[in-house]
């Protein structure tokens, strides 16, 4: 178990792993995640389950090697085993037929969108997809999402591919065109999810976002993952990770995500190994 069966770099520093764990492969539903650990002393890193292959007994994980622990994870190769793999955690996405729905992925947040889009598609939704990335080479899963969506738009911040600008610019244009979007799902960096939620709020379009606060156990035992939704405290690992985007306190989320910046920086400066940046859920 936990063996890496396939590894692929799908964009610079962005990896897709197929990991052998038949039970998780069988049980997982769209929207759920796992927690992985690579070595003794390693962090517990939450990663969304992007898909599974029941015949091969594998789950698909996609992550960007942006922090210490995800870089450790990227060091592994085919045949290596993850030390620990726990899941499927969190609530599955609530799926229903909204009619026309829009799924939006920002950066490697596009990966968690894929299984939800697939489930929404299976439920009969007509899907519009929007993928956003900093630059062309960081656009991921265009083909996979394209297969599910009846219409797919890409936006890059630097204009190197697709529409120049942000995913919200594309969404705005679609809404202005009169697309009858009844539901929006957005996953990506917190500022992007907040921007989407602000836009859809004006038009009262139901919007779900998938949050990635810092986590430890992932079972509701520590409360480290708490987020504020509609003025109430929720534990993202058990109550979420998806919440109503119009109710989320993004400001608090972003601050809490930065809790260990000082420690990380100090360790990077003094520690025996380099630890720049923070590992987030995806």
């Amino acid at each position, binding site marked *: 178990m936990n063996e890496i069966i396939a590894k692929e770099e799908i964009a610079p520093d962005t990896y897709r792993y197929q990991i052998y764990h038949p039970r998780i492969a069988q*049980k997982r539903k769209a929207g759920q995640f796992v927690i992985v650990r690579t070595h003794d002393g390693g962090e517990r890193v939450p990663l969304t389950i992007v898909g599974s292959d029941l015949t091969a007994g594998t789950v698909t994980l996609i992550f960007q090697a942006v922090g210490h622990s995800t870089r450790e994870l990227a060091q592994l190769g085919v045949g290596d085993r993850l030390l620990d793999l726990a899941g499927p955690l969190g609530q599955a996405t609530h799926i229903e037929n909204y009619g026309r729905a829009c799924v939006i992925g920002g950066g490697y947040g596009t990966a968690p969108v894929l299984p939800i889009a697939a489930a929404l598609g299976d439920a009969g939704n007509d899907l519009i997809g929007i993928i956003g990335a900093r630059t062309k080479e960081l656009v991921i899963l265009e083909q996979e999402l394209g297969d599910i969506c009846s219409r797919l738009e890409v936006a890059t911040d630097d204009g190197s591919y697709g529409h120049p600008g942000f995913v919200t610019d594309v969404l705005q244009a679609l809404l202005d065109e009169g697309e009858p979007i009844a539901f929006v799902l957005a996953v990506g960096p917190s500022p992007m999810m907040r921007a989407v939620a602000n836009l859809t709020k004006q038009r009262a379009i139901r919007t779900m976002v998938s949050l990635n606060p810092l986590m430890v156990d992932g079972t509701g035992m520590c409360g480290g993952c708490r987020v504020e939704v509609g003025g109430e405290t929720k534990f993202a690992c058990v109550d979420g990770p998806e919440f109503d985007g119009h109710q989320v306190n993004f400001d608090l989320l972003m601050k809490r995500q930065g809790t*260990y910046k000082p420690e990380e920086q100090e360790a990077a400066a003094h520690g025996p190994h380099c630890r720049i940046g923070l590992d987030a859920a995806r």
Partner: protein
Amino acid sequence: MSPKATAIPRQPMREQPPLERIGNFEEVPLGYTEEQARVEAGRCLQCKKPKCIEGCPVAVDIPGFVALVHEGKFAEAARKIKETNVLPAVCGRVCPQETQCEELCVLGKKGESAAIGRLERFAADWERTQGLVERPRTAPPTGRRVAIIGSGPAGLTCAADLARLGHDVTVFEALHEMGGVLVYGIPEFRLPKKILREEIDALRDMGVKLETSAVIGKLATIDELVHEDGFDAVFVGTGAGLPHFMEIPGENLLGVYSANEFLTRANLMRAYSFGEAADTPIARGKRVMVVGGGNVAMDSARTARRLGAEKVVLAYRRSRDEMPARAEEIHHAEEEGIEFHLLTVPVELRGDEMGRVSSAVMQKMELGEPDDSGRRRPVPVEGSEYEEPIDVAIIAIGAGANPLISSTTAGLETNRRGYIVSDPETGATSIPGVYAGGDIVTGSATVIEAMGAGRRAAAAIHQHLMEVRRSTEARAEV
């Protein structure tokens, strides 16, 4: 009774001096020497009707093992304890002896009680360090399979007893290490993890299968364990793993932790060696406030101190006499310079522009009329607020029932607070073949009570499995 016996004072245990130990995470008490243990054991009056045993939730034969220590038969003493308590090295360290066995000790009526906990610890440590631990004999395989959910003291005890009876036992643990609160909550300086790991290795030697990272309710439900995986019985020992917060303004500020999170980062994830041997960070506050008066609060305060806090304030809403922590922990905390702000609660946490906690508004309390628990209820003193500058706050006011199992198990009866309802004698729940015990039934209690519940459930499960076997065999014969 010899008059000499009572004249000998209770033997003190060597400890790391406070100023030294706040700079490390190593164990504080160093244990008895052989000589000290024999002297201390000699103080025991060997009562004909020993009161102490009544105070022990698992009824260890205390005079019996103490007599063996006195005779220098240390390994035999350890084995005597293990007849009813599978984790003596743990219990000798963490049991609240002063409210259990030692409270009832006759010596304590006039002077100081026998140091039963220290002797228990000594015997178990001696047996282990001399390499004399015997692998418990296991009965021939019964062919029956039992799933144990949760690897805290309740689950480990239940697993050990059932394995000894020849059942095929698998323990499922959500975290990546076995041990429950003993590994994620109680700090190294109070319970070295090495001791626990050896106990767990012993379980493995007995043929118990240990599955970590197995979150039951998610990876498989109890129903699936029974109907798809073919387990004949299930024991739920999932603990009280749902942290309570105070529900005061500012609790989501950066630097505010539940004790569970703070201690899990420090213990399970070993955040004290962050940047070296461990990758999980923890906020190292200079001025830390801990809220609560139990063992969890003491452990949090002392951990914060070891992480470099210059000032640690422990706020407790009642008075010192009501603190539920073990006496030794309170004493150690005070020695380590933890400041107790008694009859005090924070009513608000304030933050800086970055969203980091920067102070707590504290309110003084006084004791009013007794409440349901019979303890006098703390009531706020008007106009007594003051502001305490802090950079980390740790909330250690208790825990509730984690709903992972109850919410995924149809027909499992829980009480109004979410705890599983089970028969105190057998652990039987509303579902036949499913048993429960420990903190998930009682709410936060003690290691030894969880062990007692695991043991009683093991006996009941054994009986249930044997009855099922007899009835299926009987049916097969017709």
